[in-house]
C-alpha cells in the first residue's frame, strides 16, 4: 500500500460517525416505513384506475372510526383510527396518526404501528411514540409526560428528548424571545461586515423558525434554501455552528455574510483546532471573493499565529505574499516571498511566490 493510500484511508476514517441507540432505532423504523411504502406502491401499481379506486376506498375508510372507543382507563391505539372524546384526530394517514389532547390527562397504549408514526400534541409538547404506554397531562401551560413501557420522544420548539420507562418529565413552552444585542466584532476596519451578527440579524426579523432547519438543509447541501433561514435566526456562538453557517453563506453565494462568522472562530476560539482553518478560509474569501487584499493579508497572517508549523502555514504565507502584492505593498510582499522561499524552498507555490515578491 502506497503512502498516499494509507493517508487517504486514515483521513477518510474521520468521516465515520458513531451511531447511538436512538439513531439506530430511527434507521430501523425508517427502513420499515420505506419497505412498507414500496410494497404498497407496487401493489397499487396495477394501474391508474385501480389506484384511484384504492385511494377513494382508503379515503372513505380513514374517515370511518374502525376501533371501538377506548377503555376508561387508557386510550388504546391499534392500526386503525381511534375515536375518543379526550383527543382530536388531526391527521390519519398510512404514514402518520396525529392526535391533539383536549382533556387534561390521558394514558395511551400504542400497538406497534408497522411504519406509521403516532404523535400526540399536548400543550407545547409533541410526544412521538416509539411503541409504548405513556401518560400525558396538561398542567397549566406545561405538559407532563410519564412513560410506563417502551419509549417516547418529546419535542418542544424543535428540541427533543427521549423518555424511557419510569421517567416522568415536565415540559414548559419556550420563553418569548427577547432580542439580544448583536455581538460586535472588535476588528474595526473590515467594511464587509454584513448586517447579520453572530447571533442576531439587524435586518427586519423573520418569523422564528427552529434553528435545526437551516442546519438540516445545510447538511443536505441545500445551501440556497438554508441561507434565508440562517439569516433570520443566526448561528449560535459555537465553532461548529459558526463554521457551518460560514459554509452556508459561502456556498449560497453570500461570501460577505461568511466573514464575521469565520472571523469569530479565528479570533475568539483560538484554542479550537479549527481556528486556523477558519482564518485561512477568511483570507480566501476576502481575497478571492470580496477583493479585500488588506483584510486577507491580516487573515493569512493570523493562520501562522495560530499554527506556525501547521499544515496551512506554507499556503498561508504564500497567500499573504499574494495579498500584499495585490495591495501594492511591494516591499512587504517581497519580504514574505523571501521568507516563504527560505522556509519552503521546494514548496508547491514557490514559482508563484517569486512572481508576487518580484524575485
Amino acid at each position, binding site marked *: 500500500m502506497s503512502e498516499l493510500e494509507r493517508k487517504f484511508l486514515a483521513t477518510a476514517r474521520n*468521516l465515520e460517525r458513531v451511531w447511538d441507540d436512538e439513531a439506530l432505532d430511527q434507521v430501523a423504523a425508517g427502513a420499515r416505513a420505506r419497505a412498507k411504502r414500496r410494497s404498497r406502491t407496487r401493489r397499487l401499481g396495477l394501474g391508474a384506475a385501480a389506484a384511484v379506486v384504492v385511494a377513494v376506498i382508503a379515503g372513505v375508510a380513514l374517515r370511518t372510526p374502525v376501533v371501538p372507543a377506548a377503555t376508561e382507563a387508557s386510550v388504546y391505539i391499534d392500526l386503525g383510527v381511534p375515536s375518543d372524546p379526550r383527543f382530536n384526530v388531526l391527521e390519519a394517514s398510512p404514514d402518520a396518526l396525529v392526535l391533539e389532547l383536549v382533556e387534561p390527562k390521558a394514558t395511551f397504549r400504542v400497538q406497534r404501528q408497522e411504519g406509521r408514526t403516532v404523535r400526540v400534541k399536548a400543550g407545547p409538547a409533541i410526544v412521538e411514540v416509539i411503541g409504548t404506554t405513556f401518560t400525558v397531562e396538561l398542567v397549566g401551560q406545561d405538559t407532563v409526560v410519564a412513560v410506563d413501557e417502551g419509549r417516547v420522544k418529546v419535542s418542544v420548539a424543535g428540541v427533543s428528548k427521549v423518555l424511557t420507562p419510569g421517567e416522568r418529565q415536565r415540559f414548559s413552552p419556550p420563553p418569548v424571545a427577547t432580542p439580544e444585542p448583536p455581538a460586535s466584532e472588535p476588528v474595526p476596519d473590515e467594511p464587509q461586515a454584513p448586517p447579520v451578527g453572530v447571533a442576531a440579524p439587524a435586518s427586519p426579523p423573520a418569523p422564528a423558525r427552529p434553528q435545526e432547519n437551516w442546519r438540516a438543509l445545510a447538511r443536505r447541501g441545500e445551501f440556497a434554501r438554508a441561507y434565508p433561514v440562517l439569516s433570520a435566526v443566526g448561528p449560535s456562538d459555537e465553532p461548529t455552528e459558526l463554521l457551518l453557517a460560514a459554509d452556508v453563506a459561502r456556498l449560497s453565494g453570500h461570501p460577505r455574510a461568511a466573514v464575521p462568522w469565520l472571523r469569530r472562530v479565528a479570533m475568539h476560539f483560538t484554542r479550537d483546532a479549527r481556528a486556523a482553518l477558519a482564518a485561512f478560509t477568511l483570507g480566501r474569501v476576502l481575497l478571492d471573493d470580496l477583493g479585500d487584499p488588506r483584510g486577507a493579508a491580516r487573515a493569512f497572517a493570523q493562520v501562522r499565529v495560530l499554527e506556525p508549523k501547521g499544515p496551512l502555514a506554507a499556503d498561508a504565507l504564500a497567500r499573504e505574499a499574494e495579498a500584499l502584492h495585490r495591495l501594492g505593498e511591494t516591499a512587504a510582499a517581497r519580504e514574505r516571498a523571501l521568507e516563504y522561499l527560505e522556509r519552503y524552498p521546494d514548496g508547491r507555490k514557490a514559482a508563484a511566490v517569486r512572481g508576487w515578491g518580484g524575485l
Partner: protein
Amino acid sequence: MRTRLAIVREVVGHREPDDFERLVRSYTPYVASIAIKVLGREGDVDDVVQQTFAEALEGMDRLREPAAVRGWLATITVRILMRQLRRQRVLETFALAERWTPTMLGTQVAGGEERVTLARVYQVVERFSPSERVPWALRYLQGERLDAIAEVTGCSLATVKRRIAVVQAAIEEAFGDV
C-alpha cells in the same frame, strides 16, 4: 432449506426479539461508512442507509449464505449510491440542482489538514462518472479488496481496475506535491 430468519439469526445472534432490528444495529455503521466515503457529505447518508435496509428487508428471502450478509448489504448500498449519483448528475446537467462544492469546514471529527485533504479529494473525484468514482472510493477511502469491489459493482476485475486507475491518475496529479 433454512429460512431467512434462521440465516439472519446465525449471522447476528438470536437474542433480540426483532431480527431485523438486530441486523440494522449490526450493520448500520458499515453501510453508513460506505455511503459517507462515496458521497463525501453527510446530508444524504441517513437516506441511503434507510433505503439500503428497506431493500434488504424485502430481499431477505433471496439470502442463502450467512457469510454473504456483509457483501449483500454492500451491493445494495452501492446500487443505491450509483442511482443517486446518476440522478444528481442528470439534475446538474439540466441545471435543476446545484453542483455540490465539497467543504469540510463544519466537520467536527477531522483536523485541519484532514479536512483540506478530503475537500481536495472530493473536488477531484466528483469530476468522474459514478461508475468510476464509486469503485475508487471503495478502494482508496473504504479499503475494500478489488475482488470485493468487482462483486458489489457487478463488474469484472479488469473493468474495476481500469476505472479505479482513471480516477487515481487524476488524484495523483492533484496530490503530486504531497
